[in-house]
């Protein structure tokens, strides 16, 4: 990453000074930024600081990078969180519905719709939602995030409805397929038949034995998908002009603010590890098998 970033044409000094800069001025600014040192030296310096949790300051503005990331996370984290919850909320029931009806038209229809959900690009879903809810009916904002932040939490939630729905539709479509196959799996299992034979109706059997079994693969897939969710968030933030981590990252790559891009990527990677760990823990809570197998 570190070296890839530096193979991009152009550097911060030339972007700061503009196109008229003379070589001497550029050299001077590069020295200020430490860009004149060897790549290895730059890497060692950055890595030793980052390992101690010090991501440093932005090369261009001098702002503290950890602070900026935390700041932007107040947009991105709720976005991803809300999207995940929405995705599960619509994937599990629909997946189960489609599984229970997997031989008839309705089940196939839902299943086909999920295929469509996977195929449609995220940004396009976003544009459609904006056109309907923001431009046509003007009931939700087309983008942006309140300047006051979460102190006006209702406005914040309002501005996250369309973006998180956009993100959730794509994710949910994938999750739904897992929920569906897991449920089909469950209703063909012996224990399910046994449950039915004890006198439980199909619906009762599903509620008691089915949901738990169907949700485990969904959540573990969500854990794997978390990186995709972050990539999706970058797109969604751009479509809805949300001032989150994704948009900041795009801008920083544009201005070649190396230290800030490195810091953001490092922090995001750490977050992905953490979330995967968290999801393993959640699965252990839901699924006793995962606990006893250890």
């Amino acid at each position, binding site marked *: 990453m570190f070296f890839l970033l530096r193979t991009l044409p152009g550097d911060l000094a*030339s*972007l700061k000074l503009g*196109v008229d800069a003379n070589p001497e001025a550029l050299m001077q600014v590069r020295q200020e930024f430490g860009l004149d040192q060897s790549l290895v030296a730059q890497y060692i310096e950055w890595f030793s600081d980052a390992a101690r949790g010090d991501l440093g300051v932005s090369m261009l503005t001098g702002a503290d990078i950890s602070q900026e990331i935390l700041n932007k996370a107040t947009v991105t984290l709720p976005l991803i969180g809300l999207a995940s919850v929405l995705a599960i909320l619509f994937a599990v029931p629909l997946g189960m519905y489609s599984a229970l009806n997997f031989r008839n038209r309705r089940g196939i229809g839902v299943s086909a719709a999920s295929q469509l959900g996977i195929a449609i690009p995220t940004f396009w879903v976003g544009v459609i939602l904006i056109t309907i809810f923001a431009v046509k009916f003007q009931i939700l904002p*087309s983008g942006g995030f309140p*300047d006051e932040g979460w102190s006006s939490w209702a406005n914040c939630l309002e501005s996250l409805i369309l973006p998180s729905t956009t993100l959730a539709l794509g994710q949910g479509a994938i999750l739904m397929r897992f929920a569906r196959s897991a449920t089909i799996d469950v209703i063909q299992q012996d224990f399910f038949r046994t449950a039915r034979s004890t006198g439980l109706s199909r619906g009762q059997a599903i509620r008691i034995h089915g949901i738990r079994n169907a949700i485990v693969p969904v959540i573990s897939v969500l854990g794997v998908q978390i990186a995709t969710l972050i990539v999706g968030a970058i797109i969604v933030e751009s*479509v*809805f*002009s949300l001032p989150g981590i994704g948009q900041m990252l795009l801008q920083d790559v544009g201005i*070649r603010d190396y230290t800030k891009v490195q810091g953001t990527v490092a922090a995001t990677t750490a977050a992905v590890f953490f979330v995967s760990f968290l999801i393993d823990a959640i699965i252990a809570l839901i699924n006793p098998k995962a606990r006893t197998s250890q």
Partner: protein
Amino acid sequence: MTMKIAGRNPISIALLLLATPLLANINIASLGASAKTNSTVTIGFTLEPVSLDISGVAGQAIPQVLLNNVYEGLVKVENSGKIVPSLAKSYKASSDGLTYTFNLTKAKFHDGSNFRAADVVWSFNRVLDPNSTAVLPTQKQQFATVASVKAPNASTVVFALKNRDNDFLFNLTQRGGVIFKSGSTEFATKANGTGPFKLGKWNRGNSITLERNDIYYGKKALSKKVVFRYILDATALSNAILSGQIDIMSTVQKPELLSIFKNRKDLKVVSGTTNGEVTLGMNNSKAPLNNIKVRQAIRQAINKKALIKTAWAGYGLEIGSFVPPTDPWFEDLSKKYPFNVRAAKNLLKQAGYPNGFSIVLDVPPAPYAEASQEFIAASLKTIGINVSIKPVAWGEWLDRIFTKANYDMTIVAHVERGDMSIYANPNYYFRYNNTEYQALIKKASSARTAAAQTETLKKAARLLSDESASDWLFLIPNLQVAKKSVSGFPENSVGDAYSVAAITKG
């Protein structure tokens, strides 16, 4: 030598979007003090400043929000192009044009301290200091003719110039001429100016809020708050005005959307002028484009009127040379090399390319360039030139094309006022080297009268057109969309500022 080009990158190098409106067409005085309101006006822009350092970091987004709003110069330029007093009550130039004397007005910085002549001297010594990188090279260059800046008393400042400089006063109105409080630091995150607005909250990635300066010495701003909202994505920006989230959309990046705006009863489309010439840059040092006949053939093969219709919804203006119609030395030269495929084919034959050739068109991610690329490729195909279109990112464009001139053709809009001098620099990416043109530009910059300057530049523009150093596709119109209830925003674009003091709503 300066340059500015229009693009759509989040960086705002010296590249920018459409151009930048300056002072509004509106007469502030006629509105009277009673028009002062408590409203908040939100304006949508695409490029956000990467820093607030108006003198040290390139990029047009910085002066767009700060110049004339937060920071002020001794003089400022109005929409008509007229230069009027700002921090200087009045000014006088000596008859030889070498001494300018400014009488300062009584003003206060936003931190409450008094504005003094010493601040002017401090600000300009910063620009003139040859060893400092705190000020952009472009700005230093603009004031290279200044020999000294002195303050004989607390309310007078005297500039001594090394030689006559017809651009001096205009340069004072731009970012290089802003006055800081002496001893200021931390330009990147703070802005202690004298203007009608104070810098409010900068919510990075989202918006900058300006708050009315109630102790302003001049006419107070009409709105209490003005929010500059940054929305990089063109569609998202359009949606913001369509859904009523912003009051003004300062730039229309996709003219094909104009019909939607026109059909809305609550919105108005405003078209002003700019200095932005969309230029089909050709590498004059590389075969076959080093042949004047080839360049002329390319010009005659492209139907500009149809191109404007295709690329910019019919809103652009044909120019035929590198001069915007707001400059006194503008002449419509678009008829000199009119669209004529047969003539173009003939020129190619005379140049020794009867069967045409193949060429690469590097297209930066700018809307006007992307909208024009296919039309140009198809047009040149009709005279046997095979164009392969290659998209390039701005970073690469700056490095490979702008700096190293390693290219055949490219499309970029040059938006700086009075930027004809870029063709006088043989190392500029056009690699156009004509001593006659260079002499004309030099002569114009030291001309003793405005009339002489105008005559000389007219001659230069004609020469440039005859030589077809580039092709000039169209002049970008300054298209904005606003709620009908909003007025007083700058309609034309003649400098770097987007002055908001006269904007009202309701």
